[in-house]
């Protein structure tokens, strides 16, 4: 049902386009793109984690001298930016890309080339931003970059330019993929799959795409204004000229708060798949799960100023935002309790995915509850900008989003790679991470309430901070061991899989439609369209009721699963142009920072790519670039235009 199968042009010849690095850079296959997203994000995770370890080393003892003030400020800024924009978001994108088409029974996303484009744009944006380290000028204004500290007077280096342009580029990626996935979900579902038969994961991803669709332009505005201030002398955030620094804060947090739900909802989606599977029960209260997700998405728009309780906005505004924030606990609580109810009465198998998912339920609750304590504006005047906040958001992000993503890794690894990850190492991975995580961030509650400010490169002895900081640092290294256990696991399992029999189609006795395809998923996904009758279609085909109404197995997974043997499926062809287009953007970025001349090759690349894109023959990447017989094929022509327009407009302005 992808648009290419709708315009039958060319048969994808497997061996030719499916091996080697050429294939990876030209692929438009949502699964490969998903894997690329995941691998890239994990790489950035190591960088962000290394930065975190440096932070912890510096803070382990009072009057720390590991980094020095200037470096420290850059390190923590890049840590925040990396973890948020280059780790959690793209990891979510990895899962969304890989699984969403599979879960809705589609052959690919609606616009495969745009999908590739969004990955490459993200990659080049991330590389661009990290280039700041090499060029010696990493951003140092904190991840929310409050004006006017980020203006040229107070941040004269290039660091904040990297920040503004890098995030701008990555914003394009998010926006493109949001539009793409929304259309995919709405238009590409398998026959019979109504919206309310979609898996919860798909639902959560859909909500996230809407949040991105509407939130990204807001930070785009903010970043543009910052960029114009810095590079062209505009006065958006220059208070001496009469500007109001709070404008930045509003724009940033109008984006920023929906952003935190962008970070968490994918993970909520993941564990909503994992928990039922390992409890052997359907998700409890599917409609409530879906609607609470939507409700979170909506309410997330009305609470942003809870980040500004002390910034001097009027007391009435504060009161309104304080109250609106509190009620976000309600839909989130519904989710937590529904997960518990799903487990209740089940038969829980504690495989690694389930361990991680259980970790989310309990750890996120801690973070959520501290969030509620921040939402009381008067209380927050004591808490804000202390380590109590740092504790809150690591509990929700690490304990919620990241643990959930690890649950997803273990759960879907066989889907992507055809073998399971090692359970034993998986348990090491989980327990080391869980213990280390609580050791690191648990004490931060105490530190914060004892008055330790965040974003301080050092503290003096005598404030009562010594013990817990050392403790937290030790914890951070234990997390590091957990991460190493994961990496080891990936390697060990891949090696072991070479000699082991294949995992078979259904290692977990799973429920949702992605498991109709064999493991690993063949390039063409489904041999045949699946007809969806119910939520958990896959499971329902395996189980029925006997004459006493008792649940019995009616079919084996092998019978239900497709065997992946179809060979004549029409697939979208690879394309060079997404990577070429994306590669142009960093040059334009450098051009705006250093010399407009750099914009010339950048712009040329972008233009060339757009031209190539529009006139690309769609059958064979290596074939002659003549005009084929399918002149009328321009299925994502409009998309191209939209994308092209973004691509051009964003950095050039």
């Amino acid at each position, binding site marked *: *049902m*992808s*648009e290419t*199968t*709708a315009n*039958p042009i060319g048969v994808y010849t497997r061996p030719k386009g499916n091996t080697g690095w050429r294939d990876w850079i030209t692929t438009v296959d949502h699964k490969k793109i998903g894997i690329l997203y995941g691998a890239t994000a994990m790489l950035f995770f190591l960088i962000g984690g290394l930065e975190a370890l440096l932070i912890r080393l510096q803070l382990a003892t009072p009057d720390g001298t590991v980094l020095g003030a200037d470096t420290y400020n850059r390190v923590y800024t890049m840590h925040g930016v990396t973890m948020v924009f280059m780790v959690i978001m793209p990891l979510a994108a990895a899962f969304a890309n890989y699984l969403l088409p599979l879960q809705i029974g589609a*052959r690919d996303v*609606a*616009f495969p080339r745009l999908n590739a484009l969004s990955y490459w744009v993200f990659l080049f944006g991330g590389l661009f931003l990290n280039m700041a380290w090499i060029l010696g000028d990493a951003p140092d204004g904190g991840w929310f970059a409050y004006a006017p500290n980020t203006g040229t007077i107070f941040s004269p280096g290039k660091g904040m330019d990297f920040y503004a342009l890098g995030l701008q580029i990555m914003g394009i990626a998010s*926006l493109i993929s*949001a*539009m*793409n996935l*929304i*259309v995919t979900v*709405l*238009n*590409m*579902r398998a*026959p*019979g*799959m109504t919206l309310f038969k979609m898996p919860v994961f798909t639902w959560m991803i859909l909500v996230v795409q809407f949040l991105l*669709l*509407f*939130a*990204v*332009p807001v930070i*785009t*505005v903010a970043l*543009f*204004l910052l960029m114009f*201030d810095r590079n*062209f*002398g*505009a*006065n*958006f955030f*220059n208070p001496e*000229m*009469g*500007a*109001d620094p709070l*404008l930045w804060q509003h*724009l940033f947090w109008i984006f920023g708060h929906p952003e935190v739900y962008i970070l968490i909802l994918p993970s909520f989606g993941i564990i909503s798949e994992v928990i039922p599977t390992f409890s052997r029960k359907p998700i409890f209260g599917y409609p409530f799960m879906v609607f609470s997700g939507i409700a979170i998405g909506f309410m997330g728009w009305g609470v942003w100023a809870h980040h500004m309780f002390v910034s001097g906005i009027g007391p009435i505004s504060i009161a309104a935002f304080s109250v609106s924030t509190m009620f976000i606990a309600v839909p989130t609580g519904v989710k937590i309790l529904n997960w518990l109810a799903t487990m209740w009465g089940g038969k829980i198998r504690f495989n690694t995915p389930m361990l991680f998912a259980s970790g989310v339920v309990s750890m996120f609750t801690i973070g959520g509850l501290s969030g509620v304590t921040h939402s009381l504006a008067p209380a927050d005047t004591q808490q804000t900008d202390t380590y109590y906040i740092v504790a809150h958001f690591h509990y929700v992000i690490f304990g919620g989003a990241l643990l959930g993503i690890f649950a997803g890794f273990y759960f879907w690894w066989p889907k992507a790679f055809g073998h399971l990850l090692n359970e034993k190492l998986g348990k090491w991975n989980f327990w080391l991470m869980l213990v280390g995580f609580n050791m690191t961030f648990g004490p931060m509650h105490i530190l914060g309430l004892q008055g330790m400010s965040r974003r301080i490169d050092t503290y003096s002895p005598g404030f009562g901070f010594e013990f817990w900081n050392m403790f937290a640092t030790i914890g951070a290294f234990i997390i590091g061991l957990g991460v190493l256990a994961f990496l080891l696991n990936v390697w060990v399992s891949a090696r072991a899989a070479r000699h082991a029999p294949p995992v078979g189609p259904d290692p977990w006795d799973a429920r949702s439609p992605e498991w109709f395809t064999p493991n690993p998923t063949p390039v063409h996904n489904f041999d*045949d*369209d699946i007809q969806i009758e119910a939520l958990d279609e896959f499971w329902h085909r395996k189980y029925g009721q006997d004459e006493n109404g008792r649940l019995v197995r009616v079919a084996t997974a092998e019978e239900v699963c497709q065997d992946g043997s179809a060979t004549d499926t*029409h697939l979208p062809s690879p394309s060079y142009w997404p990577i070429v287009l994306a590669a142009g953007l960093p040059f334009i970025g450098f051009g705006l920072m250093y010399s407009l001349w750099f914009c010339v090759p950048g712009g040329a690349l972008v233009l060339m790519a757009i031209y190539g894109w529009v006139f690309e023959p769609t059958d064979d990447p290596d074939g002659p670039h003549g005009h084929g017989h399918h*002149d*009328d094929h*321009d*299925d*994502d*022509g*409009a*998309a191209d*235009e*939209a994308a092209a327009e973004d691509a051009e*407009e964003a950095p*050039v*302005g």
Partner: protein
Amino acid sequence: MADAAAVSHGHGTGTGLSNNKLLMWTFLGSECLLFGGLISTYLIYRSRFGDGPAPGDIFDIPFTSVSSFVLLMSSLTMVLSLSALQRGDIRNNRIWLLTTALLGALFIGGQVYEFTTFLREGLGYTTSPFSSAFFTLTGFHGVHVSLGIVMLMSLLISSFRGTLTKERSETVEIVGLYWHFVDVVWIFIFTVIYLVPSPTS
């Protein structure tokens, strides 16, 4: 088989809507937030002109009215070009496409003239928060119009190469959506920024 599936299960599953059109509409939904941000920024800053010219001093309402009118009419010609193509009337399609592009160019010309006049009257990009916000907002809109012109010209070229046929009228429709969107944004800007009385110094 996918074709068959698409058609026969059309209503149960997908929306039955064109992917491309849906994509454009999602994009336009997103653009609302972009222009909303710029417009709000302008509104917050319109009275912060410092020692520079104030909006009320400098706006030339009759002039802007004319160029607003031009842009408004370009929406008409845009829709006429689409309707021509849908009838298979390639000739009129081209004529109206060209007219639309020309009207757009006229609007941009007006904006360039407006900007240079303002510059001469002492309102530079860096003069005040008001000036920065004004030029950024209208500049963003101008860039959108310009991109629209590029799209229209591409359509024209495509038409002359014989590839813009009745069957592909959806492409024109989608470019049209973009174009009309840019027009309604201007409808907003024209009223809220120009016509609503602005502060004077």
